């Protein structure tokens, strides 16, 4: 029994990225997604505690469970590319069971063609962000 690497509802998002002609188009799409963040964390709520370290720009993440026990990741970044990545990540994980989030892998970014268009330390920044989400979920299990 192999489980899916990302939730089904992410498929169209990934397809959209895969359809991009080049990295510029992908970045453009990330910019668009940054505006569609399903659960943004407004700058007023950015604190030292929720800051993700090792990103080039500021990035903050708050994770919680909603009333029905489902995962909710709120995120904010001052750079739109980072915010776009957060946005897609939130789309992926919001509403999942925390167990599921805690065992997720960041393959969707590969599938989107994003990770290998990032230079190594930007990719690291993304991984730090993803890892933060995963480990927060783990704590909730």
């Amino acid at each position, binding site marked *: 029994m192999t489980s899916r690497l990302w939730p089904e509802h992410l498929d169209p998002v990934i397809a959209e990225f895969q359809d991009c002609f080049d990295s510029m188009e992908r970045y453009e799409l990330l910019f668009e997604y940054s505006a569609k963040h399903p659960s943004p964390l407004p700058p007023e709520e950015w604190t030292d505690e929720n800051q993700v370290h090792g990103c080039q720009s500021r990035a903050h993440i708050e994770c919680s469970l909603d009333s029905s026990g489902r995962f909710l990741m709120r995120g904010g970044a001052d*750079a739109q590319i980072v915010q776009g990545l957060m946005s897609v990540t939130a789309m992926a994980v919001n509403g999942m069971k925390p167990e599921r989030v805690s065992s997720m892998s960041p393959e969707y970014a590969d599938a989107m063609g994003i990770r290998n*268009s990032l230079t190594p330390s930007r990719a690291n920044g993304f991984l730090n962000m993803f890892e933060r989400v995963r480990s927060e979920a783990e704590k909730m299990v």
Partner: protein
Amino acid sequence: MALDVNAIRNDFPILSRVLPNGHPLVYFDNAATSQKPKCVIDAMTQYYEQYNSNAHRANHTLADEATQALESARNKISSYFGTNPENMIYTSGATEAINLVAYGWARYNLQKGDVIVITEMEHHADIVPWQELSKEKGVEVRYVPINTESFTLDMEAFDVALDGAKLVCVVHTSNVLGIRNPVEEIILKSHAVGSRVLLDCAQGAPHERISFDNMDADFIAISAHKMAGPTGIGCLLVKSDVMDKMGPFMTGGSMIRRVTTDGSTFQEGHAMFETGTPRIAEAIGWGAAVDWLSNFDMKEVHAHVHNLAHFASQEMSKINGIRIFGDPSRSDSSGAVSFLHDSIQSQDLAILLDEGGFAVRTGHHCAQPLMDALGVPSTNRASFWIYNTEEEVESFVKHLRYICDRFS
């Protein structure tokens, strides 16, 4: 005679680099560090492959060759900077050079209540050591503000701040704004009130031929890596009478005359401040770099770089939403052009520029007080040097325009 930039480019292996994204490298991050000509790289390789040895007390051939090369580098570099080898202390870079002034001179010569004048335009390397000294010794640190319209130092405020100053620390050329400060006037005025002057020439040295003895500054801090030399080396130039008033900073081998369990005596002059195994390969590399630079008239280099910066800033200003910090129209302005877009965040802009092969620096550039004065958290900065071309600038402006159109 104009510079033959194409010939110059051939001296730099890295300039033919193609990035993983398929774009040829366009390197506009020269204020962070310059690229190195092949002769500099080769000089270090040759050292390691042919005569690597610890220097001084040279009783065998290799040690003697290494010592000669080290001393010949010191001669070349000090003479390039218009002074004697005795006035030059090797450091790991401009940062250590400024710390050496703080620990080796200020700690011994300043008292509680003495005034150090610095500017809002300084690099952190020329701010934090003085703040720390202030905590330790109770000296007062005064900040000369900049005029945020002209981006120049507020010289009236400088005149006021000078009252009672014992040390004035000023960046020769701002790494963010490209602005060259009126260092001649600053030196004259500071000396008139009996203050010593430290110039941070980390950015000045790659753009202007520093002539230490003529300039009459008391201290000058320089990094090799911004002027075609290797990482890990730089120097502090010090006037002889000022050096005589300095005390030891880092201690250990070489800087001593005699060590006993009852105490030690030290070497005099620059030798007192150089301890441990010297940065031999680095010194040799830097020596090769000043040899290479000596092929050119720095006035022409400055004119070339200034023209690129001026042209770039003019073209960039025409792009909607782009704002320039600094005044590249000033003929003494260097190759740094700081800018921001009013809606594309600076990190995003940098990544999108990199996508086209353009290397620019983004951030606070180790100048947060300046960022605070400008009212921004960071800038993008394109900085040009001797091997950059008008074509590169043109394609940069084109790509920047494209990004701004598409992403805002």
